[in-house]
């Protein structure tokens, strides 16, 4: 009788207890809003790229984007779009320069998903589910990181963001990506359809800092794995109705708006 009671209790508990998710129960969560930081105080995005160790390419492999200037791919807002040729004559005061020929368009498709292989100044956001982690950027691009144990597909058409599978090692998310379209990699590296990227999304013990370590491997491209790191902090909060909150912003860009093409307006000169 006692055994029957135990069995019945076990049976009931198994119905009532929610399924446990491996590695997600008590860890520090990656989920939330993050912004990239400048821990060395270099002061500019060119400077941030400049501190990336140069990729050690095999002889005969052309550097992508030069030392430290590589980008992960196109994005929104005219980044990477061909600039309009600059006039040698400075514009009169108050007349804007037209600096972006094709605003909101990166040349290979807006928000093509590549951007988040090398996040820039826009905020990035993670939502963690047991089967998939979504990595989304405010300046476009969404990555799907499968954590359900699947492997890379046998048949895959290369994409700018590749195909990503992930697993947790404690609180660290380790993501392995392959199946890229050819492109540039920060630090003067390049990627091909055979290149493999391993990313470690590692949080500080207090959960407020995130370090992404990128390791690019391709024996046909690199003399040794090309490794560099990006650093992030939790996105700043704002006070709203007595609560500190952060949330994903929406970056609007209208390619049909002529104002999107203009940039710096020469300021009024003050002559002392």
């Amino acid at each position, binding site marked *: 009788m006692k*055994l029957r009671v135990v069995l019945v209790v076990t049976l009931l508990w198994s119905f009532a207890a929610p399924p446990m998710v491996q590695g997600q129960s008590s860890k520090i969560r990656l989920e939330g809003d993050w912004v990239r930081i400048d821990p060395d105080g270099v002061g500019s995005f060119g400077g941030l790229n400049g501190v990336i160790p140069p990729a050690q390419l095999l002889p005969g492999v052309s550097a992508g984007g030069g030392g430290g200037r590589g980008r992960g791919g196109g994005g929104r807002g005219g980044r990477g779009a061909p600039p309009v040729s600059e006039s040698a004559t400075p514009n009169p005061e108050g007349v804007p320069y037209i600096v972006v020929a094709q605003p909101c*368009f990166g040349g290979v498709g*807006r928000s093509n998903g590549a951007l988040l292989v090398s996040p820039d100044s826009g905020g990035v956001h993670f939502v963690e589910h047991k089967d998939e982690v979504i990595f989304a950027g405010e300046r476009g691009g969404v990555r799907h990181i499968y954590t359900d144990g699947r492997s890379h597909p046998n048949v895959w058409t290369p994409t700018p963001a590749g195909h990503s599978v992930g697993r947790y090692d404690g609180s660290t998310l380790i993501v392995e990506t392959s199946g890229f379209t050819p492109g540039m990699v920060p630090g003067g590296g390049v990627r091909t359809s055979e290149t493999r990227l391993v990313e470690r999304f590692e949080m500080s013990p207090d959960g407020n800092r995130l370090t992404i370590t990128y390791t690019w491997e391709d024996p046909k491209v690199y003399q040794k794995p090309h490794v560099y790191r990006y650093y992030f902090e939790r996105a700043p909060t704002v006070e709203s109705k007595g609560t500190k909150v952060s949330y*994903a912003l929406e970056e*609007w860009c*209208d390619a*049909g708006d002529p104002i999107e093409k203009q940039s710096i307006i020469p300021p009024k000169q003050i002559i002392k």
Partner: protein
Amino acid sequence: MKRFCVLTSVIACLVVLPTSARTRVPLQEQRGTPDLSGFWELSFDSRNVPRANLLPAITRAKLDAHAKKDAYAIRWCNLLGVPFIMDPGRPLDIRQGSTAIIIVPENSSPPRYLYTNRSAHISDDIFDPSTNGDSIAHWEGDTLVADTVGFHGEHGISAIPGGGYRTGKSRLVERYRLLKEGSILSVTFTWTDPSVFRTPHSYEFRYQRLPATYEPRQWLSCDPFDEDRARFLESPSSPKPTSRAVSKE
């Protein structure tokens, strides 16, 4: 008899548990709420959309003007926003996290975040209106109730299924509920807007769950500077770039 009862219980465990695991609506970890996560697709018979009861002030001319703006958004590859991305012609990837539920369309529009970690909207004086608005969500039993305000009145595709359009005053309440042991996701949309609708406008979509092995496709490029595409889209009533000229200051 005792041995028979034990044996029966063991068999019950072996038989019932796996069956229940297959049929039970998936639960979100440790919260006891349903897990809406998955890949969801609308089929040809997935929409129940009655005609909206519009205010008399919503004239044909106003509807045409909004339709023109929507065509402009498509022509220039703008962000499309809600409600369009809930019926984008491709599956949605919905993932339920610990602070938010994200809805990712397979196009270049940004995903929606339904925040479950706060119960109030961002203050009007802080939030910049957007094509997706500000969404907060909570559970009422097995139903996720999402409330969205903060829409931009001009950006993206504003047309609402059944008639009317969203404005900066629109409010959307969505009720998400799993049906048929988790194979169907019912979403009831209710729009209210004192400047558009005479009565709240409700309609329902029923999304079908795709296999867990489904993988979203790389979205198709949208090139606003493709002249052939522009010619294809442009018609006598096509939108032209607005009258905004390059600013001189």
